[in-house]
């Protein structure tokens, strides 16, 4: 499957260290990774192993020390950022799903999704139409006007997924998306991520400690002391 397609995420010789001298910590050591469309990848590792650092680097939040990062066919880092507008890059290419869903408490479900489209330049009506479709797709169409405070954990996570997918990103980065959910709801979320990967030809990276979803990944990578290995 992967041999005919170009990777959506391609990382070569990527390193990141914090501090210098005796205080130097190598968070990522010479990472090489290719992730293709339709793939749902699990990223495991103990606390402090570098998982969040890798996610932040792929999400263009944290600058690596050296290496190359190519996202959706665009070389964005080659020992330095090649784009100055990293937020624009994230808006265009990357969707984020958080452990604590991070919905705006003052926006309705509809507006939480529409805000991304508004930022991307959609008209208000087009943004609401697309947001409504996504919420329907994620089976929370009956909660469009509800505020996050009145949503259940599962509903809030679906709205957060809808927000991550609003601008049709081809790269989805999920940080512990099932940590706060029971087995059944965790399974539903993973099914949704799989559906997104297939329908949008997207690559999904899931950082998790949740053993109950290990069998849902196409590949599982382990990070330990900044070194990536495939299981």
């Amino acid at each position, binding site marked *: 499957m992967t041999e005919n397609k170009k990777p959506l995420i391609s990382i070569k010789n990527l390193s990141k260290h914090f501090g210098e001298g005796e205080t130097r910590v190598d968070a990522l050591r010479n990472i090489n990774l290719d992730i293709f469309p339709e793939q749902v990848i699990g990223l495991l590792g103990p606390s402090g192993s570098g998982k969040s650092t890798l*996610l932040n680097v792929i999400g263009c939040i944290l600058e690596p020390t050296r290496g190359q990062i190519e996202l959706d066919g665009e070389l964005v880092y080659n020992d330095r950022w090649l784009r100055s507008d990293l*937020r624009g890059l994230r808006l265009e290419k990357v969707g984020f799903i958080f452990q604590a869903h991070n919905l705006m408490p003052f926006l309705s479900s509809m507006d939480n999704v529409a805000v991304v489209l508004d930022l991307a330049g959609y008209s208000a009506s087009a943004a609401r139409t697309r947001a409504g479709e996504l919420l329907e797709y994620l089976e929370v169409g009956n909660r469009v006007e509800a*505020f996050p405070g009145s949503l259940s954990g599962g509903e809030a996570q679906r709205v957060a997924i809808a927000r991550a997918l609003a601008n049709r990103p081809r790269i989805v980065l999920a940080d512990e998306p099932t940590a706060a959910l029971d087995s059944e709801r965790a399974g539903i979320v993973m099914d949704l991520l799989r559906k997104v990967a297939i329908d949008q030809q997207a690559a999904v990276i899931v950082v998790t400690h949740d053993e109950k979803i290990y069998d849902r990944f196409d590949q599982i990578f382990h990070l330990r002391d900044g070194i990536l290995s495939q299981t």
Partner: protein
Amino acid sequence: MNLAYRDVRHNFGRFMVTCFGLSLLLGVVLAMIGIYRGLIADALELVDTIDADIWVVEKGTRGPFAESSRIPRDTRNSVARIFGIKSVGAVTFQSIETESDGKKLRLYVIGYEPGQLGGPKYITEGRGLTGRNFEAVVDSRTGLDIGDHIQLGRNGFTIVGTTVNAVSSGGEPAIYLSLDDAQKLQFDLSPSATRRERARGAVVVNSTDTVSAVIARTSPNASNDNIVKTIERWKHFAAMTEEQQGIILTQSVVEKARKQIGMFTAILILVSAVIIALIIHTMTMDKIREIATLKLIGAPDRVIIGLIVQQALAMGLIGFAMGGLLIFNIQDFFPKRLVLQPMDGLSLAGVVVVICLLSSIYGVYTALKVDPAKALAG
């Protein structure tokens, strides 16, 4: 999508409580400006009401308001003969404390010759003085009505008319008496004082025919400065124009109070600025995670700056409007007059806008420093 509006709408109660708190503070600032204006207006009000072009007072004094002045009443005859003088009057001024309905009442007694200059500008109710003794016209702020009696010194007076805009530079409402009555009030000794003076062999003078000032109106084509120079050449008199009298009142009589209130107003504005900055900073800190999330999903800085600045401006302007409305509605309950001028209101609104923008800087700085990775933290 206006995030500031959505946030305010969602937290409307809390936002309005914050605005109300701010409105009290800005209301106090507005009240202080009103008191400041009121102080100046009160100081000038009597001079404006009397509306004399020339004030003649005792040589070497800046009377009759800044310093005591005493000149013979018949000075007005000499002044009346100067070329360019249209009309003259002789007036006395005196502060007095009396009682009305069992309450202390401070009054500013103005004695004038009925039919001459120096009387009340308008009679709002009743009639003016006709020359008969023991009648008075009072400013409506005294709380006295027509037909009321009031004891001043050894004599009782009947109120026959009311007027407005007649207060001393200290804000005491005026009572107009005939010049003869005012002089008796000023110079007559009490019976016990008379007996004491007689016992010590002093010559008791029951009245003197002196006044605080002689005032004059001039013809339209006359030069007030020349008239002042002419009077200044006389041996025992000083003269000044209405404008000079106004300057003495605002720059001498109420100068310290004016500076005090001005300084207090400046400090209040500074305190308001610090409080607004703290409120905005707290509002920003409350939204740190949302701001980090916005950055993470790609919101440009202008969206985040807009969220903070628009809320700050809304808070400041709503707080100002509420504060203004509050003070406007309770201004009559203040013991001293508040003069609320539209330009002062607009200027304060402008200052509030500037304060909100400046105060937002710290909030914006904090928001722009937020690491988007904070959104990913558990």
